[in-house]
């Protein structure tokens, strides 16, 4: 009966009840949406991070590198050289190294050149077809297949850059869909996956055009040289090819066939003794300011002994002519160490000694969540303020109603209810108001999230699950507690009421 009376009392005065409930529901709604988004973002970021210990990419914002290479949420920081990256990938401390090459997209979805290891990292299962094996074959993430309607056997063209429409379409390099993955709830779902070579093939013409231009590549070559001399145990094969080509032109212009001859033999053979042995005075004797200005000063300035120290076997193991032709670049490398102890040593040497950067993604993501957390905390404080006001409104409403209802309380006592029953009645009313506020707030949060999802779907390819998260249990408890606390004083008064005095009032 107490329960029925409590409920009827709430329904009997709908306006004040609606006031209480609506304040509660907005507080609850905001907090629930925040809880859901925060939890699911953290889970998603955690899932996608997998066991990636280190990300290597072009210098730039570390966070951008992580967002772009691990989560595919941002533009790449730039490209790095495959050969330079390879020395790190082949480091004995590295357990797994996955190259990523991206920059193109299909209908706004990223085309990612990688290896099969990347799919295995996220435990991808094939739903249809197979995993890409040759260049220009593509395997699609589940959501991509769903969104684009592409099927196995279909052909699509990549767009340069990551824009939805507009942008340069690579019309002469179509991709063929060879497989579609099962849903993994990871970043895989929204990627078009292919071999790294496909990305190179697509960009072959464009990049060569650029690099063949005089001057630009020359300076690039110099940069690589200086990187080499700083002790990174690799030689940039591709740049060598270019370097040679330009040298030839330059040197020929200066008409000193002698120099030309020994210089290039030396480079190819890496016969540094010989290089050292050649007479630099002789060079100076030639009238070629240009030549002196960059090439030889540079060479002289560096310690050739150091140069000798490079791993020449490795160097020679590569096919020079091939690399000379194709400038292999990738966007990032995802590394996993054999031992976690290595994590803190490697990034520093890479950051200091190469023109790549190495970033520990978990640190960047923690930093990101810390920053997001500040915003979320502000919103939570606002919501907590609303909850507090809701609590106060429940208090005022119950307190006022008790004044109107004091004869009812006296009547209930006179028909046999104990003082504690009256206390319980008021507490129950507060709790019911709070529970209604919670229930409606829960509904509001789901409706809100549904609309956020519709928006997020377009903007970030991110979907939030509408399910229950553990933090909500606390929110239920807190909300009910707010209702009970607000009802406490009126309930106390109802319990302590002097029945006889009240009935004698008139």
């Amino acid at each position, binding site marked *: *009966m107490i329960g029925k*009376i409590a409920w*009827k009392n709430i329904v009997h005065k709908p306006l004040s009840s609606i006031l209480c409930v609506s304040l509660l529901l907005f507080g609850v709604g905001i907090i629930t949406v925040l809880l859901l988004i925060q939890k699911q973002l953290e889970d998603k970021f955690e899932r996608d991070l997998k066991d990636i210990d280190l990300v290597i990419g072009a210098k730039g914002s570390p966070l951008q590198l992580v967002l772009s290479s691990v989560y595919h949420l941002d533009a790449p920081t730039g490209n790095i050289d495959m050969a330079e990256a390879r020395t790190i990938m082949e480091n004995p401390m590295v357990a797994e190294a996955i190259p990523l090459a991206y920059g193109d997209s299909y209908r706004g979805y990223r085309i990612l050149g990688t290896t099969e290891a990347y799919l295995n990292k996220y435990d991808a299962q094939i739903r249809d077809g197979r995993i890409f094996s040759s260049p220009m074959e593509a395997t699609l993430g589940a959501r991509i297949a769903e969104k684009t309607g592409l099927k196995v056997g279909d052909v699509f063209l990549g767009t340069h850059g990551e824009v939805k429409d507009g942008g340069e379409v690579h019309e002469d390099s179509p991709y063929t869909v060879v497989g579609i993955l099962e849903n993994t709830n990871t970043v895989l779902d929204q990627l078009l996956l292919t071999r790294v070579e496909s990305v190179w093939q697509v960009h072959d013409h464009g990049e060569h055009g650029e690099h063949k231009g005089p001057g630009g590549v020359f300076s690039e070559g110099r940069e690589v040289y200086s990187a080499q001399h700083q002790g990174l145990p690799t030689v940039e094969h591709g740049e060598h090819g270019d370097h040679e080509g330009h040298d030839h032109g330059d040197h020929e212009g200066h008409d000193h066939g002698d120099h030309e001859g020994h210089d290039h033999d030396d480079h190819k053979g890496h016969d540094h003794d010989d290089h050292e042995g050649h007479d630099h005075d002789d060079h100076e004797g030639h009238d070629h300011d240009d030549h002196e200005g960059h090439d030889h000063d540079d060479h002289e300035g560096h310690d050739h002994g150091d140069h000798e120290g490079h791993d020449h076997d490795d160097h020679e193991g590569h096919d020079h002519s091939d690399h000379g032709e194709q400038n292999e670049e990738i966007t990032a490398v995802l590394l996993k160490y054999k031992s976690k102890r290595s994590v803190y040593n490697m990034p520093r040497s890479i950051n200091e000694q190469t023109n790549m950067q190495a970033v520990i993604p978990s640190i960047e993501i923690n930093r990101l969540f810390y920053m997001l957390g500040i915003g979320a905390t502000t919103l939570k404080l606002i919501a907590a303020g609303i909850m507090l006001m809701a609590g106060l409104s429940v208090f005022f409403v119950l307190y006022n109603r008790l004044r109107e209802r004091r004869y009812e309380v006296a*009547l209930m006592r006179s028909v*046999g209810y*104990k003082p504690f029953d009256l206390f319980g009645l008021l507490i129950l009313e507060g709790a019911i108001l709070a529970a209604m506020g919670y229930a409606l707030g829960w509904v509001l949060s789901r409706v809100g999230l549904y609309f956020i999802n519709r928006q997020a779907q377009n903007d970030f390819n991110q979907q939030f699950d509408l399910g229950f998260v553990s933090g909500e249990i606390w929110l239920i408890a807190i909300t009910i507690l707010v209702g009970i606390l607000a009802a406490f004083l009126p309930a106390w008064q109802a319990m302590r009421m002097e029945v*006889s005095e009240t009935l004698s009032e008139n």
Partner: protein
Amino acid sequence: MIKTSELAYRYPESNPIVFPDLSVEPGHALLIRGESGCGKTTLLHLLAGLRKPTYGQVIVDGVKISDLQTQQLDQFRGNNIGIVYQQSYFIQSLSVLDNLMISPYSRDIDKARTSAGRLQIHDLLHRSPQKLSIGQQQRVSIARAVMNDPKVILADEPTSALDNKNCRQVINLLLEEAAQNDAALVIVTHDDRLKSNIKDTIELEALLV
């Protein structure tokens, strides 16, 4: 049955009110008359156990209710005493029927319907109490007072707000219901119209000691 002995009540900072002893057998009625301010309502509250006497005893059905603790009193009252007030008190948010069944000790819906039939309020059961006329409200109060098969029915000015016709109806219904339940009926009032209906009368004068 109900009886009192040497009953007196003292409000803070005033002289005690001493009440004459009274005793009412089951099925009998007693009218306690007195002018306003002579302590009629105080006496009724003492009889109902809503207030504890400063001196003396109230015995209902052999139980000294003046010795009971608050919680025991609430329970005893709920089980044994029916009260009709001058003004009808209802839980406004509940229907007439739910108001009849308000007591935690008398939740018998058949009994509620039977009483309502006797008191001719059976078509009002699903109405809201504040929509009833004063006469109807008082009949609902009487029906509620007998819901727990009371040993004692106490009525505080049950007719003073009613016109003659309703007054007659209400007093007759009270007497009938008391007889029906074999309950002792005590009415405190200053309403002279009731004199003709009840033989046993005590005139209350404030006795100051």
